[in-house]
């Protein structure tokens, strides 16, 4: 009977702390798993956007030394000699392709120069100086720019990829400038990606709002049918739906056949491998993601509000605009942001239904990872895409509470 209030409070606090620790324990496996197999890999990948290991790692001694060179004429014989020997080692260990590719970004043809020089180097100490030997193999070694390119890549970090991803380059005077017009690709790409996502979001809203509205304001039977019609595409494989659009939209597909037979058009329309095809496919895939949040919000709005407005003499359209629409704003915001976020990361659908000019950021990340093997640039594009997503996701969480996303069923 000696238990005082203070004692009780303390015990209560202890229990609560234990329960909190228990919650952490339940979270721990997921959090640790995702830290190791999701967050860490992505962080390491993004880090590649500023890493520049190819040249510095392949020629460590000479690149440490070349930092001291003033950038005029050629570096001194000791540096050149060190470089030549490291080049030879790299050749023997078949390590030439990575630095070659990196230096080729600086000066076209550098890779060939490096390779030819490496295979032309004597295995013994040359009789003449290493400088002369190099120039003897290829006179380009006399040009300062090739050595400057080495010096610029002697540091293991670079901003070049990020700049390229922003269509920027270093100017002669050391400042930044926009790249020439025929090289500029990426700002257009971001604009295009955002614009396409915007169009798709808007279209999904215009198509999805009435469905969600009817789903909440009709008999149980109609409601059930509509729900099935919305959920079936949601559960159906994305590739199946994309395949089916490829069939439907092709030149000899059913839509074109119908249009021609009805006499609406003389020749079949080009519906596939262009922007139209991408829009149709993506709207179709993302529409359920718009409808679900709308439906969730609309279900919570009592019918009595609209009826009250109507009984007060408001015409239906105005009642809708002034009473109903504002109450569905959270659903609109959630649906639009969700669709927008998902849309700017799309890869498969534009790759299959679009042409060259309809590809979004993801396509270029894949392209530079798989095709050009320019992994630094792929990472830089990834950083930009992820930044866009994070900003939007932050807004999304702000608007919908703790980031609750209504899915499925």
């Amino acid at each position, binding site marked *: 009977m000696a238990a005082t209030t203070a004692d009780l409070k303390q015990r209560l606090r202890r229990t609560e702390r*234990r*329960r909190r*620790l*228990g*919650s952490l*324990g*339940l979270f*721990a*496996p997921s959090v*640790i*798993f995702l830290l190791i197999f999701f967050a860490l890999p992505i962080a390491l990948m993004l880090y590649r956007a500023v890493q520049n290991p190819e040249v510095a790692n392949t020629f460590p001694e000479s690149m440490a030394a070349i930092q001291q060179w003033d950038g005029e004429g050629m570096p001194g014989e000791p540096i050149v000699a060190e470089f030549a020997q490291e080049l030879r080692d790299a050749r023997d260990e*078949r390590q*030439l*392709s*990575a630095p070659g590719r990196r230096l*080729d970004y600086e000066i*076209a*043809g550098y*890779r*060939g120069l490096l*390779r030819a020089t490496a295979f032309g180097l004597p295995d013994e100490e040359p009789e003449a100086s290493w400088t002369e030997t190099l120039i003897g193999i290829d006179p380009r070694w006399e040009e300062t720019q090739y050595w400057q390119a080495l010096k610029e890549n002697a540091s293991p970090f670079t901003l070049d990829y990020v700049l390229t991803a922003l269509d920027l380059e270093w100017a002669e005077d050391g400042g930044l400038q926009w790249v020439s017009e*025929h*090289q500029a*690709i990426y700002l257009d790409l971001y604009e295009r990606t955002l614009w396409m996502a915007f169009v798709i979001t808007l279209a999904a809203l215009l198509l999805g709002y009435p469905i969600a509205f009817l789903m909440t304001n009709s008999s149980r039977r109609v409601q059930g049918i509509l729900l099935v019609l919305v959920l079936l595409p949601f559960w159906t494989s994305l590739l199946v739906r994309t395949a089916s659009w490829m069939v439907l939209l*092709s*030149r*000899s597909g059913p839509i074109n056949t119908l249009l021609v037979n009805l006499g609406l058009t003389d020749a079949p329309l080009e519906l596939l*491998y262009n922007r139209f095809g991408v829009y149709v496919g993506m709207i179709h895939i993302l529409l359920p993601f718009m409808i679900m949040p709308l439906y969730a919000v609309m279900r919570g709005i009592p019918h009595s509000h609209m009826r009250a407005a109507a009984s007060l003499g408001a015409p239906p359209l105005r009642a809708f605009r002034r009473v109903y629409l504002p109450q569905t704003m959270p659903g609109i915001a959630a649906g639009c942001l969700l669709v927008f976020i998902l849309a700017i990361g799309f890869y498969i659908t534009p790759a299959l239904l679009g*042409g*060259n*000019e309809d590809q979004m950021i993801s396509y270029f990340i894949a392209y530079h*990872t*798989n*095709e*050009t*093997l320019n992994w630094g640039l792929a990472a830089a594009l990834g950083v930009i895409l992820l930044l866009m997503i994070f900003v939007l996701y932050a807004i999304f969480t702000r608007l919908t509470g703790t980031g609750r996303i209504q899915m499925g069923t």
Partner: protein
Amino acid sequence: MSVARNITLGLAATALGSMTLAGIAAAQDRDLTVVGWGGSYQDQQGIAYFEPFTEETGIPILEESFNGGLSNIMSMVETDSVVWDVVQLEDPELQRACQQGYLERLPWDEIGGRDDFIDGGSSECGAGTIVWSIVNAYNTDEVEGTPSGWDDFFNVEEFPGKRGLRRGAKFNLELALMADGVAPEDVYETLSTEEGVDRAFAKLDELKEHIQWWEAGAQPPEWVASGDVAMTTAYNGRIDKAQTEGQPVDIAWEGQIYAIDSWAIISGTSNKDEAVEFIKYVSEPENMSRLQQHIAYGPTKEAAFESVPEEMAPRLPTAPDNLEGALLNSTEFWVDNQERLDRRFNAWASQ
């Protein structure tokens, strides 16, 4: 006690999971993976080579296909995760990959020597498998008249409709120059100057809005047969195949660009012995010539020419009629220039 229990429960689940996964990982073994160019050609390779090989040697083959280029191979070797063993490469890629150490040097004494191969059919890292060509293929329903040569390919007024071209600089620059009036024998000389390259791109500019790019060899026959494109460049064997299957397509041979493809072994593969055995098998003339029963690509050994079926001979790229005005794709030129020109091509194409 619930704290400890919860944590233990969670950690146990994770640990159990990891252990199971590790168990699965340890049990992995890879079949000999042979990488071809997909579509109807690879189907025929399966009948002519892969199935008989497995039957005779007991070595199972896992098939994979790709669309050429070196990027897959390079990233596989550079990230030290090689999962291809034997791959079929175009000649310039073969030589570049060989120089840069992405391919194994072939043990020619085990395979049976290089002497029987035709000129350019064997090299340090590659054993030739077919002579093939890029041809102008057209839909006989959509195209009125008979186009010939690449100038007709570029003539969208007389032959309206879309055009299919293989994505990349190789072949397109050559055929653009031929369309612009450069004789086949002068093509590479012209291309080796900056003006020549500009000229080729300028010619391609004229056609740009009509072009639908293909990457996989299976695409152009399908597009041209369905009328999605009126004319397209294509690998000759696949068009021939579609034609014999009754599709409304035909080949305009003039100006065909022919070349040799070879088998090569990826550097660092764990299945090297099986890979060598495979190359040895498909290089035996009597095995090699089995492909010509099925598809119109030429063999790379003189001895194999003898058993080419009579009705197939005139449909091969090397048939005398077809060689008129033909261009041999230059390995030398593309080894030196492909990366530079592909980069320019990509910038041009994405604008």
